[in-house]
């Protein structure tokens, strides 16, 4: 009990930056707190009442003084704001090429998934020095995925995906907490993030009995649920192709364009009418709400991602136009 830390581990690339901002605010706060405490203390002693009949002289209000002691603190807070906003933007903007991992919160556990197929409960093994992007959701109520050592958290909300990223910089084991009250075992929804040397991480990947990869599981669902019968890769089906669409712009029926990210893919599976691709106005895709779990949705999304080659050009076209066959005709991507 006596061997307690007073400051959290700093184990991510952003932790140092967050701590620097923290210490700046501590310094400013300390300065003003000491100023105010000392000022009040000094006045309390120096101007203590000695004569019951003494009435202090009147004071003239001073507009300049008021403006000065409003504007100076305001500018200091603007510095805090700007610095904080920059860090905020960095923390919530995942870098390109980040390793993708997934988490699903549910009462009362965290289910994490690696793309290679490894699934963990309340644990997350990650390699040190790599950018890692978490795509997350929840099966029931709102939770929040919080790793204090990385100075990062993000709420997970039913019905949508939220993302956050981090780059672990120190090998070790760190707390993982749920930080949004979610019911009975909210304080039991905790675990560990294990940051490992790359070699150890590879060894862990190889050693753990992993089953099929997320994409393989997704492909299996894709077939079983009947998606393959419509979404054929050469655009001959009644539905738009899913080849080379991930993170590319998709023209919609109403004239807008959206980026086919994870959220769009998930929404299209659950609410196919929400954002219909241009040219498919008579589409008949049924909803799969209730037929596939959040885990399953992440797997299908992972599979669809594998259908996009890293440098592919957007390939969505209306069915009438004969889409030119892609130069490299491949089979189902793994």
């Amino acid at each position, binding site marked *: 009990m006596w061997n307690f830390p007073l400051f959290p581990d700093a184990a991510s690339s952003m932790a140092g930056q967050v701590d620097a901002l923290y210490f700046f605010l501590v310094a400013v706060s300390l300065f003003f707190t000491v100023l105010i405490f000392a000022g009040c203390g000094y006045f309390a002693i120096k101007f203590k009442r000695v004569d019951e009949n003494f009435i202090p002289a009147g004071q003239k209000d001073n507009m300049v003084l008021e403006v000065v002691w409003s504007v100076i603190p305001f500018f200091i807070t603007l510095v805090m704001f700007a610095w904080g906003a920059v860090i905020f933007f960095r923390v919530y903007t995942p870098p390109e090429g980040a390793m993708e991992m997934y988490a699903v919160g549910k009462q009362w556990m965290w289910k994490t998934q690696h793309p290679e197929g490894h699934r963990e409960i309340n644990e997350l093994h990650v390699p040190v020095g790599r950018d890692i992007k978490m795509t997350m959701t929840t099966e029931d109520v709102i939770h929040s995925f919080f790793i204090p050592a990385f100075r990062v958290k993000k709420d997970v909300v039913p019905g949508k995906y939220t993302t956050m990223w981090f780059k672990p910089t120190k090998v070790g084991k760190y707390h993982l907490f749920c930080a949004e009250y979610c019911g009975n075992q909210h304080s039991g929804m905790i675990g560990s993030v294990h940051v490992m040397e790359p070699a150890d991480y590879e060894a862990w990947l190889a050693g753990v009995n992993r089953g099929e990869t997320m994409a393989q599981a997704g492909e299996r669902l894709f077939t079983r649920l009947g998606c393959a019968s419509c979404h054929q890769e050469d655009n001959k089906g009644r539905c738009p192709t899913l080849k080379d669409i991930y993170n590319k712009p998709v023209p919609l029926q109403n004239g807008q364009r959206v980026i086919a990210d994870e959220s769009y893919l998930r929404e299209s599976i659950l*609410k*196919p*009418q*929400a954002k219909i691709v241009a040219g498919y106005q008579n589409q008949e895709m*049924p*909803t799969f709400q209730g037929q596939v779990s959040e885990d399953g949705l992440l797997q299908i999304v992972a599979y669809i991602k594998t259908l996009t080659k890293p440098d592919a050009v957007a390939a969505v076209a209306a069915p009438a136009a004969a889409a030119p066959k892609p130069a490299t005709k491949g089979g189902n991507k793994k």
Partner: protein
Amino acid sequence: MATHATTPNAHSDDHHHAHPPGFAHQFEDIGQQLDSTTLGMWVFLAQEIMFFGGLFCGYSIYRSLMPAGFEAASNHLNVPLGFANTVVLIASSLTMALAVRAAMLGDNKWVLRWLVGTLILGCMFLGVKIIEYSDKFEHHLVPGYNFQWANAAEAPGAQMFYVFYFTMTGMHALHMVIGAGLLLYFIYKASKNTYHPQYFGPIENMGLYWHFVDIVWIFLFPLLYLLGYHLGKGH
């Protein structure tokens, strides 16, 4: 800011000078009382606007997210009936305003008549609402109870529309029922000739409340009934 000029000794314990009946003694004079009660009613209405505002805010957001479902659901509402109700409510605001006018003019007979007219029209509105609500129950349009919607794509938006339909018209109807209750009270007081040119504040404030409830409906009608009107029959 102007304050009321008043005589300092106006309200020592044993004053005997006359005040109009209905005068409340925390005030200095009937003018201050009328000013204060009117301001009080406007402040209360500001609060009501914020109350309904939350509903309108939610409606606006979901309508922009699910326009097709909302329009299809709205199309199912009975526009002629809603329009008739709108006319009834506007007419009741007219009779209410005329009741206030009668009070200001000291015409007790017409105060009573116009108030009763307002009550009758209000009850007609509520009667039509009951008819409409029963229709929704029959047609499986009650969310959380028996909601069914044929078009699977529109179903989520349609159900959300009806969630807001029932909540917004229900809240409005609740305010009308309260208004009807208040009207009964004012009818009783008017039958005792309580209101006259020196004391009509309560009727005027009742009028403000009634007009507010009317205005809420003026917003509800197009947002709920006319939203899907362009889709035509049989949609």
